[in-house]
């Protein structure tokens, strides 16, 4: 775990309010699903770092990918090539590797795309369901469309791209045709994850979810980011952000 200050190679707008930022630098041994705590400005405002998934890390370049939600991400969106950014990372556990021969299904909703896409690009096989509200919110369309070894299904709530459906509705439809030795990797809004888990549990398919929680430190000292699990409170930043969906007490919030 390191505290690194590095230069922005580029910061491109890739969809409505969505940016792909490439940073200079290496991170030895990162896993898809791990994240960085990114400092937005050198001053004390905004005060906290922002947790952002590592989309990719290769050839001395780190990609992060974010949707503008509030002040911090808006400031990140304004940053230009050559500016410095600092971050702590890699943080968290990341998705676990599948067993040999396991079938793979990735499912992402809206801003939950980065960790799942990262895993899909890492493994290079399986089926990818990506849902968003509307076409404008679907970023990296080409990159998703052309994922090597992966079949991508798009869906939107308004039908402007792909099927008019929720990602979980697509999941319900395809799950019957999946072999039982399938593993699901999921990230998105909590309600989507809960439904994904429901569907997966029914089909007795293991499912890993990447959770979001408000964080102060991101490296495990503040206990700010806990989630209630069968094992008691666990820290999303440390024991997570990826959990086995069946360990989460979904009803508790």
């Amino acid at each position, binding site marked *: *775990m390191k*505290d690194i200050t590095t230069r922005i190679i580029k910061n491109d707008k890739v969809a409505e309010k969505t940016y792909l930022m490439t940073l200079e630098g290496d991170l030895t041994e990162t896993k898809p699903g791990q994240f960085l705590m990114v*400092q937005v400005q050198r001053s*004390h*405002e*905004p*005060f*906290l*770092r922002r947790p952002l998934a590592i989309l990719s890390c290769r050839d001395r370049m780190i990609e992060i990918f974010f949707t503008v939600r509030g002040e911090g991400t808006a400031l990140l969106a304004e940053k230009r090539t050559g500016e410095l950014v600092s971050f*702590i990372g890699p943080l968290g556990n990341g998705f676990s590797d599948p067993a040999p021969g396991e079938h793979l299904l990735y499912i992402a909703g809206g801003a939950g795309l980065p960790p799942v896409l990262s895993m899909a690009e890492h493994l290079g096989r399986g089926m990818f369901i990506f849902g968003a509200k509307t076409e404008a919110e679907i970023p990296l369309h080409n990159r998703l469309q052309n994922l090597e070894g992966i079949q991508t299904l798009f869906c939107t709530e308004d039908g402007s791209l792909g099927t008019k459906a929720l990602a979980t509705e697509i999941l319900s439809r395809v799950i019957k045709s999946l072999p039982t030795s399938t593993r699901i990797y999921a990230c998105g809004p909590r309600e989507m994850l809960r439904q994904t888990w429901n569907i997966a549990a029914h089909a007795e398919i293991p499912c890993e979810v990447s959770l979001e*929680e*408000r*964080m*102060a*430190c991101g*490296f*495990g*000292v*503040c*206990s*700010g*980011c*806990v*989630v209630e699990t069968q094992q*008691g*409170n666990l820290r999303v930043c*440390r024991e997570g952000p990826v959990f086995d969906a069946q360990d989460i007490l979904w009803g508790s*919030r």
Partner: protein
Amino acid sequence: MKTAVRIREDLELKNPIITASGTAAYGEELSEFLDLSVLGGFVTKGLSIRPKRGNPTPRIAETPCGMINSIGLENVGIPVFLKEKLPYLNQFSTPVVVNFFGETEDDYVIAAEMLSIEGIAALEMNVSCPNIKRGGIEFGKDPESLHTLVKKVREVTKKPLIVKLPPLVTDIVVIARAAVSAGADVLTCCNTFPAMVIDENLRRPLLGNVTGGLSGPAIKPVVLKLVRDVSQSVHVPIIASGGASTYRDVIQFLLAGATAVEIGSESLRNPLCFLEIIKGIEEYMERFRMHSVSEITGTLEIV
């Protein structure tokens, strides 16, 4: 040049920089960033005799130049701490200060007894917990409750006893005197300010627990004055806590009368700040040709 400070005749810190309770957990994670032996002292997460699950999430809210937490004192409990966490901390040459709290006076007393063992350098009492007997007002906000509580704890421990004061009181000097007259060796000034944040679109409090405690640079100017007020009215060492983020803040707290300074929120956003601050203090002392931190503490000049 000597950066060491003494908070009781039998307890010297190698420098005035201490972790703040609840912001460095039990040390394991922070030590991935730095050697804990460089610290003047290590204060643990607040501990209780039984484990505690804490509050519902969200537990963290960002505010202008600060943050609110409503962790709700989640902790592993003293027995687990002593067995699993303390040995780890005792690898380092840094004195371990255990922060503790209870729901009743007896809880505090039992906790203090359990913690009065080798490997623990001092006890820091968090008295910002409601005293159920006295109508739910915090122990630390009522001078009488506080006096009784500290006295009882004092009777069962010979360890340096630090009492951590609540900041939002009408007259902190009255509270400080109550703690000292009951036997506190040191005062920490102060805990977080009760605060809240609202999501105006959802029309709901942002924190699962509705309210929490404000910390960070935002509160520093208020805490600086409280430290000065307390240090001018009692004759025990003061540990400042509240918004210190740079060596300059630390020097300001020392000038105002503090003997040591806890760094909390800043270390959440920048775990390396401890190293930067300790270096900054050393450079400051060189710049002004000082030989000891005691040349700073309480030397504010009022013209």
